[in-house]
Structure formats: structure tokens, C-alpha cells
């Protein structure tokens, strides 16, 4: 294509330097936010003004900041749950199901210690670690189903994890509604509240799960950059065939990445239902929190599977979704602004995937004097 003396053409990239990939990701997010501002324009508001309010509420208002951090923890864990299988070229969209199972297991521990009636038969120092461990085991085992089926028979993991989400969704409903074992004593269709002693301790005003996020970030960064196992996972993701010749066992990798991902998603379930101040129960709207974990897909894709980058993205999206919720109340927008943001960011991200594969070259065209010769 030629435009004003310049030739514009597309060229396939052979390699992509890290800073360019980061730049593309930043542009994708900005473009998504631009798309999102349509919602504010439609409500007759100045998008820049609203964005200013969203950011100041999410990051500078003390109450809003607390919400942002809680959501950041959740989104970071959801992204890790997505990233680990993604590095092996597999899609885990089963975070909702895995986190429901994690939440159920954590509440199961409290139930076993008699916590349903309000008093624990053991001290919190015993029960809380058990809750966390149970949540991770349950999430990990649930994730392992998809990994097992993928590794053993090459069953499509996207459909399987999605189906597992619905199964877990109804399992939660069974446990907390219609007289299920975890139903609260008042008979409302939600779980019993965690007794005081079983609530996660706070450090510096934030739940302890925040520390898990930092530790996991370091562990994952080390796993993928320094350890042989991380290298195997990535090699398998790049080319399963070549990795197999190099001695990587596909079955092992598939089960491993889904187990690890599921365990982290289980921790996310523990976080939202067992550690966020003011919740401490599996609320009737638990499906909302499950669906929020799909943000993990976007965080994982934008950060190209880098755990540290995904931390930054999770903080940004956590703040945006909390701030979006605030703007929703203020402007009387319909429910689900945070989901609209999720959709806009996702579609923008997909469009920008193009630039990972292609670059646009603009070169000045040499002027030639084309003389018509007519004899």
C-alpha cells in the first residue's frame, strides 16, 4: 500500500524483543480503556473526568484501596492459575470451578471442627492453616482432572474445564442451599459464617493472602526462568513434539500444570470467601466471584505468561474494576460495569495480538518519473 509517497507494508516478525512486547501490551490496555470510555460517553459524562475519579477512588481513597488490594490478590492468584498451564500451551478456564472447590474444602475444615454453630473445637492457629491447605488440595485435585484427561487421551481442556465449572457451581449450590450441610442456621440460601477464630489474620490492614501472592510470584518467576522443570513446561508449550523427543513426558506436564494452577485457584477461593474482611461466608452471589476469575485469562495473556508482569496488570485491573463499580453507583449505570470492562479489554487484547506476529514497515518510496511513451 502506498500513501503520500510512503510505502506501507506488513512483515512477519521473526523475533520480538521484550520491551516491544511490553509496549504492545500497554497499547492494548490503553486501547481497551478507550473502548470502555464509550460507556461513559453514552451516560453523558466526560471519560477523562470519570477515569480520574476511578483511579483516585481505587488507589487513593482508603476504603477503595482496601477493596482494590483484596481484588488484586484475587486477580493475581487467578492469573497464576491461568499462566502455569498457559506456559505449557494449555488453556485453564476452570478457575471458577477450582476456586469453588477450594472454598468448599476450606469451609469443610471449619465444619469438621464444629465451626457451623459458631465455636471451634480447636484453636484458629490449627484450623486456619488446615483451611488453606485443604483449599489448595481440593483446587489442585479438581484441576488435575482436566490435566489427566488432556495428558491421557488428549481431551480438549477448554470444554472440560468449562464443564467442570458448572459442575462445581451446582456442587456449591447443593452444599449451601435447600438444607445442604453448609447452609447457615438462619435458613438463608448461603453458607454459615466463619467463626471469629477461623477468619484469616490481617497484616498491616490486609489479609495474609497478600503474602502468598508475593511468595508465589517469586516462586513462579524462579520456576520459569531458572529451573529445569519450568524449562520443560515452556519447551512443551512451544513445541510438544520437539519436547517429547527431548524426553519431556506430556502426561506428567499436563497433570502437573493443571494441578499447580488448580491449587492456586483454590487459594483464590479461600481468599475471597475466607480472608476478605466483611465476607467470611460463601454468599448467595458466589457465581459473581467465580466469573471475576476470568480476568485471570486477560492478565495472563497480556503479561505473556510473565508472573511479575501479571502482578502489575492484576493491580491495575483490580483497581479499575473496583473503581468501575464505584462509577457504576455514582452514574447509575447498570450492573456489571466490571464485566463490560473485562470484555472490552479482552477484545482489544485479541486485536493487538496481531502486532506480536507482524510489524508495519513504513519506507519512503523512491520517486520515479513515469513518463508515458507513446509513439
Amino acid at each position: 500500500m502506498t500513501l503520500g509517497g510512503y510505502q506501507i507494508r506488513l512483515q512477519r516478525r521473526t523475533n520480538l524483543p521484550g520491551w516491544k512486547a511490553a509496549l504492545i501490551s500497554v497499547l492494548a490496555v490503553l486501547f481497551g480503556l478507550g473502548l470502555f470510555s464509550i460507556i461513559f460517553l453514552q451516560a453523558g459524562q466526560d471519560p477523562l473526568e470519570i477515569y480520574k475519579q476511578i483511579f483516585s477512588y481505587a488507589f487513593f481513597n482508603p476504603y477503595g484501596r482496601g477493596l482494590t488490594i483484596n481484588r488484586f490478590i484475587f486477580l493475581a492468584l487467578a492469573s497464576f492459575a491461568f499462566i502455569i498451564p498457559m506456559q505449557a500451551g494449555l488453556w485453564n478456564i476452570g478457575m471458577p470451578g477450582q476456586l469453588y472447590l477450594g472454598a468448599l474444602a476450606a469451609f469443610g475444615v471449619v465444619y469438621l471442627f464444629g465451626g457451623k454453630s459458631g465455636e471451634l473445637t480447636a484453636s484458629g492457629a490449627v484450623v486456619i492453616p488446615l483451611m488453606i491447605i485443604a483449599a489448595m488440595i481440593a483446587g489442585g485435585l479438581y484441576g488435575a482432572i482436566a490435566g489427566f484427561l488432556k495428558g491421557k487421551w488428549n481431551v480438549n481442556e477448554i470444554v472440560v474445564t468449562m464443564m467442570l465449572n458448572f459442575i462445581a457451581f451446582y456442587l456449591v449450590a447443593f452444599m449451601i442451599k435447600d438444607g445442604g450441610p453448609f447452609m447457615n442456621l438462619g435458613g438463608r440460601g448461603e453458607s454459615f459464617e466463619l467463626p471469629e477464630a477461623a477468619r484469616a489474620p490481617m497484616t498491616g490492614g490486609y489479609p495474609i493472602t497478600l503474602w502468598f501472592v508475593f511468595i508465589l510470584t517469586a516462586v513462579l518467576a524462579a520456576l520459569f526462568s531458572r529451573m529445569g522443570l519450568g524449562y520443560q513446561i515452556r519447551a512443551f508449550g512451544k513445541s510438544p513434539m520437539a519436547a517429547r523427543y527431548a524426553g519431556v513426558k506430556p502426561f506428567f506436564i499436563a497433570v502437573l500444570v493443571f494441578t499447580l494452577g488448580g491449587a492456586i485457584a483454590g487459594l483464590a477461593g479461600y481468599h475471597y470467601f475466607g480472608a476478605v474482611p466483611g465476607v467470611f461466608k460463601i454468599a448467595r452471589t458466589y457465581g459473581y466471584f467465580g466469573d471475576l476469575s476470568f480476568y485471570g485469562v486477560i492478565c495472563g495473556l497480556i503479561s505473556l505468561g510473565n508472573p511479575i508482569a501479571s502482578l502489575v496488570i492484576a493491580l491495575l485491573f483490580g483497581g479499575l474494576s473496583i473503581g468501575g463499580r464505584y462509577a457504576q453507583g455514582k452514574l447509575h449505570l447498570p450492573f456489571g460495569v466490571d464485566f463490560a470492562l473485562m470484555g472490552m479489554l479482552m477484545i482489544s487484547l485479541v486485536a493487538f495480538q496481531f502486532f506480536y506476529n507482524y510489524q508495519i514497515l513504513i519506507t519512503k518510496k523512491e520517486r520515479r518519473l513515469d513518463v508515458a511513451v507513446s509513439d
Partner: protein
Amino acid sequence: MLLFLIRSLEAAMIFTFAGLGELVDQRSGILNVGLEGIMLFGATLGFIAAKTTGNYLLGFLVGIGIGALLGLLHGFFSITLGVDQVVSGMGIWIFGFGMTTYIGNPHTGPLGLDKLATWFGVSPFFYLAVIMVVLVWFVLNKTGFGLKIRSVGERPSVAEVSGISVTRIRYMSVIFGGLMSGFAGAVYALYYNPVWNYNFLMGWGFISLALVFFSMWNPYILFGGAVLFGLLWQLALNPQMFFPGLASRYIWRMAPFIMTILVLVLISSKWFRSRWGATKPESLGQPYHKE
């Protein structure tokens, strides 16, 4: 009992519409895992259009139109831009899920129109689904155009050399796929379950996707599978009809999802693949770059 069968067939017709579109799509070599998102869009926008104007026809047209547009979008991403097809499909799904949650919310609740008429007790769309199955089978297997679609899905480079425009055929297929998914969503929202709620499609798009894998890319088997799933779905909704008092209704609700996984495992097994596995379009999911 009769009502049970009728509702099963009506669920089957929705799986069939969405599945047929995806089947043609995949036959041309394009995998669209985002049909849940397209169906959600077709369902939600079709629902809003019909509810606000009181006009059913408009609702269906809007569903078809948005479906075709999203199919085109998937085509643009995966054919023209060469984006990974799974990434693009997942993007369309999350886009559909997120946007329809927001757009549809003010319209939460029943449609509030007279229910559409039936023919001999079953929705006319069921007969349309049967006709479409035969039609798609005929076009794919008995016409030159169908041969073009299949050849593009198997060996695009060979098809290109023999004078077929891979890009054009694939675009036509993805638009058809999107249009059928959007229509399936509209039928769901305007006839089968005319009460809007967020994410009310309950994974039917993903089940339709699983059905296409199940069908071995044959429209007749797809239809058989759709009827099977329709029956299962109804059974899960009304277990007391056959097994009174057995297990909670929430446990029963899991049944179709568990069945989907079991069916997928069965067709993915070596035993199955070694017999019928060769039917998979050779270049499914691989972008084609004209050299």
C-alpha cells in the same frame, strides 16, 4: 411425558443450529471456541430488540445480524490478522460474556410477549433444524461448493493452487458459523427460555462445541448427538419424572456437564480415534499464509 420429549427436541434444535454453524466453520479449517459468546450476544440483543419493540421477527434478525458480525470479527482476527484461533475465540467469548452481562442487565426478567406458535406441538424451528441438517450435509458432500469448503479445511495450499480462494471460502464459513450461533442464541432467548438473566445460556455454546467434536464433522451424527443432549438436559431438569426423590435437584443439574465430559473422553480415546479419527479436518486451527 410428551412435554418432556417436546422440550428435549426443542433443546436439541438449539444445539443443532449452533453446532451446524461451527461444523461448517471447522470443515473450512477455522476453529471458533467462542460460540458461547456469539450465542450470548445473539440471545441478549435479540431479546432486547424483541422486548422493546414487541416484534419477534426483529429479535431474530438482530440475533442473526450480530452473530454474522461476530463471525466476521473472528474471521478478521484469525484469517486476516493471523491471530491464534483459540485466543481469538476465547476473546470473543469473554467479550460476549462481559458485554452482555452489562447490556442485558436493565432488561432482566421475562420477555412478556405471547409465546410463539407450534406446529404439531413442536416449535417450527425444530423442523427448520432438520431441514438445515440435510441441507448442510448435501452442500458439504454433494456440491462443488462443499468440496471447496472441505478442501480448504484439509489442504489450503493445494486448494489455493487449484484456483480456490482460501480466504474467501473461510470468510464465508466463519460468517455462516457466526450467523447460525447468533440465531441459536436468539431462539434460546425468544423461545426456549425467554427470561433474561446474566450468563443464562449455561454453557450451551461450549456443549455445542463439544457436539461438533462428537459428530466427527458429520451433520447427521451432530443431530443425533444434539437429541441425546436435549434428552439429558431435560432429564437433569426434571429428575422426579423418572427417579422420584433420588438426589437433590442441584446434583441432577450436574448430569449434562458430566455427560459432556464422558462423551469427550470416549471420542478422544485411542480406541475411538483409530477407527473414526481420520475425519478431522487436516488443517483445523492452523492459520493459512499465502506465500
